[in-house]
């Protein structure tokens, strides 16, 4: 435990309110995600994880039948080799959820049951954001931050999926929150290590969390690093370090143990397989990503990519409030550090003393995930999901900015004519009204984006048509087939051979399992010889559409899925 640094405990009533509101927001979000899940088509990676989750569940069945055989290398490899390039935690949860909610209880479609743990992770993240936000800026900050995050269109899209991007965002945030709490409590230090272990078992991004926390610790305690002793005193020259946080010890020891315990694939040939896991990502092929009219497919990738993409995919008011919150925190921190200049009010000073380092912690965790992708040699696998761990921290700044704006606007009321002035209750009403107004664009954008989350852009670039003009990526992962199922079911001829382009085979199968796609519609792996063909429009895949024209002898699509008038999925029928 590191004395003198840490958040103060929230007052009792505030704590209860934060937990209650956090739970309510998180639960409502999960309900909303479940209700809208079947609108969102299956992304390529989801298909792979459906299959992997099913395989992993078979290993558990095998365990019940023959525990000894299941633990052998052969027994492990038979079920855990599939998708061993990603750690297992979420896939196991996807599988368990499927077993319970689809197979046993029959409450959900198969796909929704697989996706459910990802949705829970989205709801859990909102709950944590309320708690963290409340601890740094009050209940208003926490609630505004959570809603701002929930209403980021791309976050809303990803929160539907049986993928790892929202779960790792949750785990990253949970580790940072626990670390923050651990600065006052050694028990939270232990929790930090366990949570990091779970993060390691979720996705590769987790390796960057300790780096971020280490930078935070070094910067915050830079003055306490030094050399011991003076003159000829004994021990002179020894390195002087500040107290090592319990969380670091816990992370180093418990983190790898949790990963190892949760991942049977590592139980045999551990080092070799761990090296293989790392190597897969170190040597991962580069993907194509369109950005400002050019498809990047090899380094150097543009440094600006994550920053510009963040600006043009998050609602503008959310961004402006976040910038306001950042500016506010920077001003406050600077004034605190500079001491005598523009001293803080006593109340603020007391608050700041309990929150030493919070500005740095938020900034680091917002910037590091983005800087990793901004590094020109880092592969950009698609859109915004790879720096999504930054977004809850952006949302916290939005919450802080909202607090400032609410204070600013209600403060203006004091100067208003007498009939306009309101008491404390009236100010609360004004602040709530302002909250609704400021969140309205985010709600509107999120509603408009559904179910085309990866295609949607916000005001700064002129929404989706502006993005098409600017040459921004319209989609990846082939998920938009889900928006054409109705048309396909009505129009594909009986036993029609259909070229599904970027949709994964496993996703196609899931559409059938869930009864969303007619059972007689056949998979056809190429344009030539198909009866119906579609193109998930991406710049580097335009050639598929030309192949359809020249094979079918027509440039007239039979149906086009559009978003805000921008073609997403043209479908052609052979003459």
């Amino acid at each position: 435990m590191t004395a003198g640094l840490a958040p103060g405990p929230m007052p009792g009533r505030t704590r209860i309110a934060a937990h209650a509101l956090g739970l309510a927001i998180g639960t409502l979000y999960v309900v909303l995600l479940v209700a809208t899940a079947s609108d969102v088509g299956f992304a390529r990676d989801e298909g792979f994880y459906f299959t992997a989750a099913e395989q992993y569940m078979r290993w558990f069945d095998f365990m019940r039948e023959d525990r000894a055989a299941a633990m052998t290398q052969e027994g492990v490899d038979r079920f855990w080799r599939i998708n061993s390039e990603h750690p297992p935690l979420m896939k196991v949860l996807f599988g368990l959820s499927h077993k319970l909610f689809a197979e046993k209880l029959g409450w959900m479609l198969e796909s929704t049951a697989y996706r459910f743990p990802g949705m829970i992770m989205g709801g859990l993240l909102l709950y944590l954001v309320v708690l963290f936000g409340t601890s740094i800026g009050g209940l208003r900050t926490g609630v505004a931050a959570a809603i701002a995050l929930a209403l980021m269109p791309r976050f809303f899209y990803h929160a539907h999926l049986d993928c790892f991007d929202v779960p790792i965002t949750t785990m990253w945030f949970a580790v940072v929150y626990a670390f923050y709490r651990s600065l006052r409590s050694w028990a939270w230090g232990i929790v930090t290590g366990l949570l990091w272990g779970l993060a390691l078992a979720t996705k590769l991004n987790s390796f960057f969390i300790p780096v971020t926390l280490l930078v935070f610790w070094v910067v915050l305690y830079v003055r306490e690093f030094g050399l011991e002793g003076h003159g000829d005193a004994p021990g002179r020259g020894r390195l002087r370090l500040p107290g090592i946080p319990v969380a670091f010890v816990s992370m180093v020891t418990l983190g790898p143990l949790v990963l190892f315990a949760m991942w049977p694939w590592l139980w045999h040939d551990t080092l070799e397989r761990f090296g293989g896991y790392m190597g897969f990502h170190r040597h991962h092929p580069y993907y194509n990503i369109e950005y400002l009219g050019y498809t990047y497919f090899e380094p150097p990738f543009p440094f600006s990519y994550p920053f510009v993409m963040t600006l043009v995919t998050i609602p503008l008011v959310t961004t402006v409030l976040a910038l306001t919150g950042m500016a506010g925190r920077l001003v406050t921190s600077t004034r605190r550090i500079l001491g005598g200049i523009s001293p803080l009010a006593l109340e603020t000073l007391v608050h700041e003393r309990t929150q030493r380092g919070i500005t740095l912690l938020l900034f680091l965790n917002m910037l590091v995930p983005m800087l990793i992708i901004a590094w020109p040699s880092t592969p950009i696998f698609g859109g915004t999901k790879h720096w999504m761990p930054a977004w809850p921290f952006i949302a916290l700044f939005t919450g802080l900015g909202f607090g400032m704006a609410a204070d600013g606007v209600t403060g203006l009321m004091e100067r208003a004519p007498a009939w306009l002035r309101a008491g404390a209750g009236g100010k609360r009403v004004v602040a709530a009204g302002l909250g609704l107004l400021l969140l309205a664009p985010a709600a509107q954008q999120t509603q408009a984006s559904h179910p085309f989350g990866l295609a949607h852009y916000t005001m700064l670039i002129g929404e989706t048509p502006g993005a098409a003009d600017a040459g921004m990526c319209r989609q990846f992962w082939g998920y938009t087939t889900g928006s054409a199922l109705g048309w396909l079911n009505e129009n594909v001829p009986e036993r029609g051979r259909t070229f599904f382009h970027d949709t994964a085979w496993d996703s196609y199968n899931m559409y059938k399992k869930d009864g969303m796609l007619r059972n007689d519609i056949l998979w056809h792996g190429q344009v030539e010889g198909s009866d119906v063909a579609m193109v998930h429009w991406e710049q580097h895949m335009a050639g598929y559409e030309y192949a359809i024209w020249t094979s079918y002898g027509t440039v007239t699509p039979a149906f086009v899925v559009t978003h805000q008038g921008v073609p997403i999925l043209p479908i052609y029928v052979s003459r």
Partner: protein
Amino acid sequence: MTTAFLIGRVRGVKRWIQLLWLLVPALALVEVGHHVWIESRVPDSRDWQQATRLVEAGRQAGDLVVISPWWASQGFIWLGRFVTVEQMAREDDEGYGRIWEVALPGHRQEGYEKKGKLLKEDRAGCLTVRLWSFPRTPATLFDFVEQVETRARVSMVPSAGGPEEPCVFRANPKTGLVPNAAVQGGKFRCDQRLAWNYVAREVIADLDNRPRLCLWAHPIDGKRIVIEFSGVPEGGVIEGHTGKKYEADREHVERPPILLQVNAAGKTVGTAMHVQGGGWMPYSFDLGPEGTAGKVTFEVSSAQAGMAHFCFTAKLRDE
């Protein structure tokens, strides 16, 4: 000036700055309004149908129909019946005397205003239908891409000398299962063992991922691909474009250029050079007083044929 005066001024400025907080809710209203405005500019099927009726009513044979911006291709659900694959994959807009432009709000084709004359402009819901005329369009006397299957003889000639190896035309099967079936009756097959070693009409995606109907003529190490046309009319200029398939042209690697030597009336009139990453590159060769003398030959070669997914167009024009 007294201190009290200064403090008063500072407070006055601070009050005005406080008013800036009102910009935040104002921005929220702007963002909500902007979204409504964006949605109001999305054409629906009735708009497209209305635009289609306008085009249909005034369309003449040979007219080109385009959509602005290029990405609004859902319009071809309705307008596609006026457009052929060859037109969609045209090398450029030259040669069309009249062009119908169906445009989304705030969009128009760059360059039409400079080169052409706006004959009429109508509204179709939120779409705009414009008819452009291009009076000074050079006439195409012979399209080598169009005529290759009937008027060309193709062979490979070793660069170091040796006998010519004829490339034999093989018609595509009539099953419709062949790539490029709509623009290609068959291929001049050269070395049967190399799947890419042929000459044929194809639609490729160029470096900008635009469709281009052109003559596929992948060079081969140590040989020249020779495409010989006879019975070519007289004309003033041979012009066209060179390009490579997107995946091949975009690579950031050093590759020797691909050469397209054009011979007419028994002499070389010019050599187009396609450099790596060149995109869709125009060329134009003046034939001079000798003209074509009925015979034009294109010779394709490269010092290194790897990833040389080369394609070209050529037209004989009067000027």
